[in-house]
């Protein structure tokens, strides 16, 4: 349905909590709450979607939503300090106000994923929307609708892993198989060492009735996709989430297109089969 209004107005939100995720302090998670009840009610999202986060005076930038919609009233964004806006955001504190416009883009294909096994593959700080997906699936009312859940998550070093407390909780569960790997270990690390594609090769479930969801840095994705192909995952059941420079988030400003698809509107979630039909420009 067409909505004729100003599509650029963000909802005001309050920073409730800031969590430093990594030892180099370059990645923080921001817990946000809605100021207005009506904004909270209007913000209905699913794992995989993103939103435009406003830091007034600096502008807006798109971030995947890291929280699960099963936790109502709370939005989380895990943000790497990279440019002007994220640098300013990293200096903000509890009680400060930001703006959020969304939810935007496509979600993971949850309906089609139901009743199948899931292989979630994440690397580095692209793990955010995967974390939303995992928490969504683990929610009591949802867990029964999905099959076996296998998670492979990697970072450069143990200190660069996100959501360390949550990883520990997931490890205790018997309805999730978690494999955390690091490229280079330090003294205290007892887990797996090695890159994500190798871990996937070792632990992936049979491809027969499994969805693979891949989010990570380009190199990880490039070397993981051939592994999935060798394991006979059909491209229709390999799901990726793309990053692109965005401004409007609603398919108008013209910069995030790959061919005639706009990543903001038609993505950011695509299946490998869909991506193969698009020009290789991302």
């Amino acid at each position, binding site marked *: *349905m*067409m*909505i*004729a*209004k*100003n*599509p*650029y*107005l*963000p909802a*005001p939100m*309050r920073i409730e909590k800031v969590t430093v995720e990594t030892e180099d302090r370059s990645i923080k998670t921001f817990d946000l709450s809605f*100021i207005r009840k009506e904004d909270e009610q209007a913000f209905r999202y699913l794992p995989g979607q993103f939103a435009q986060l*406003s*830091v*007034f*005076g*600096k*502008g*807006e*930038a798109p971030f995947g939503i890291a929280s699960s919609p099963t936790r109502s009233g709370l939005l989380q964004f895990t943000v790497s300090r*990279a*440019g002007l806006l*994220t640098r300013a955001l990293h200096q903000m504190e509890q*009680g400060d*106000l930001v*703006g959020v416009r969304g939810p935007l883009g496509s979600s993971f294909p949850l309906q089609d994923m139901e009743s199948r096994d899931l292989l979630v593959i994440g690397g580095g700080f692209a793990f955010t929307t995967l974390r939303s997906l995992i928490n969504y699936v683990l929610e009591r009312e949802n867990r029964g609708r999905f099959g076996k859940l296998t998670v492979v998550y990697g970072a450069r070093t143990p200190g660069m892993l996100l959501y360390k407390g949550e990883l520990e909780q997931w490890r205790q569960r018997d309805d999730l198989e978690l494999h955390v790997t690091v490229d280079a270990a330090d003294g205290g690390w007892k887990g797996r060492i090695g890159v994500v594609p190798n871990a996937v090769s070792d632990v992936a479930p049979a491809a027969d009735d499994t969805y693979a969801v891949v989010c990570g840095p*380009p190199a990880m994705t490039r070397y993981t996709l051939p592994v999935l192909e060798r394991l006979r995952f059909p491209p229709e059941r390999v799901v990726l989430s793309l*990053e*692109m*420079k965005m*401004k*409007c988030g*609603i*398919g*108008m*400003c*013209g*910069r*995030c*297109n*790959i*061919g*005639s698809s706009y990543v903001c*509107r038609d993505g950011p979630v695509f299946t490998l089969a869909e991506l193969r039909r698009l*020009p*290789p*420009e*991302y």
Partner: protein
Amino acid sequence: MRAVLLAKNQISVLLEALLQGHEVFAPVNDGGLIVFRQVDSPQQVVLGYHNSTLPPKRLFFPQTETVFCYGLEGAQLALEEPQPASGEKVLFGVRPCDARSFTLLDRVFAGGNHCDGCYLARRENYTVVGLSCTRPRATCFCSAVGGGPFSTAGSDVLVTDLGTDYFIEAVTDKGAVLVESLSGCREADEDSIRRRTEAQAAAEATLRGAISAEDMKRRLQEMWDDPLWDRLHEKCIGCGVCTYLCPTCHCFDIVDEGSEQRGRRLKIWDSCMFPLFTLHASGHNPRPTGKERWRQRLMHKFRYWTESHGEVGCVGCGRCVVNCPVNLDIRQVLNEIESLTKKVE
């Protein structure tokens, strides 16, 4: 629809009457540049022009537009929206290529699941009076890309210069209301209808034939890795004038102007010809050189537009041809694509 005739020397009277009930925007000569401005007297209006230096696109899609103002005070955030445009407006004397561009911009800003309310309000407030081209320029190619010198697309009324008279025809219901309100006109007779038809045929005869949008789309779908792209961009200096003067280019940036406490968020024209347009904060750029950017501009207009909307995103106004500082001619590029792919077949 109704058509009437107005003696050319009565045009001032007609404009004067329009000025009574509407804000009128029309082509004016501003130091040698033809631009669309609000006018307050008929004497300012220039109708004997080929095409305006700047397209009238900015009346609906301003180069800079405030989307909201913000003010932060303690735990309070105030957001103030601009008031949507109001008042009856007439855009008078638009060439058919530019009028058609409005229908293309509508698809972008008001054609999908999301709609820019401010854009739509501006569009709805205007009655567009087109001015057919009896003498197209050498750089015009509207008929190649789905338009024509007498195309009515995007116009509510079409005016044709018949030498001694203006032939004024209603195109839409909105246009019919305007034509009905005109005084000093007489009903179009058979002779004037014949002369209008002849003028159209004469104008069309000076222009090249149509390029099939579907055909061009299919050619470009096979040309992603063609060596043509390595060569094409070499003389392009990336100035972006082609996009800034283009009546269909719709890319924009969104930026904040002001402090953390007080300021406004702006929507500002941007260009796919600039390297920063697609540069990620990480340093990665999916279109790092002129090659990818030129391919994007051409593919967007002649492949992606057709894939998404069934018609090309170019109206053939020729401004990019006339104003390119290094004479990159998009018509020659299209010809080359046609000849290249013919060879392969």
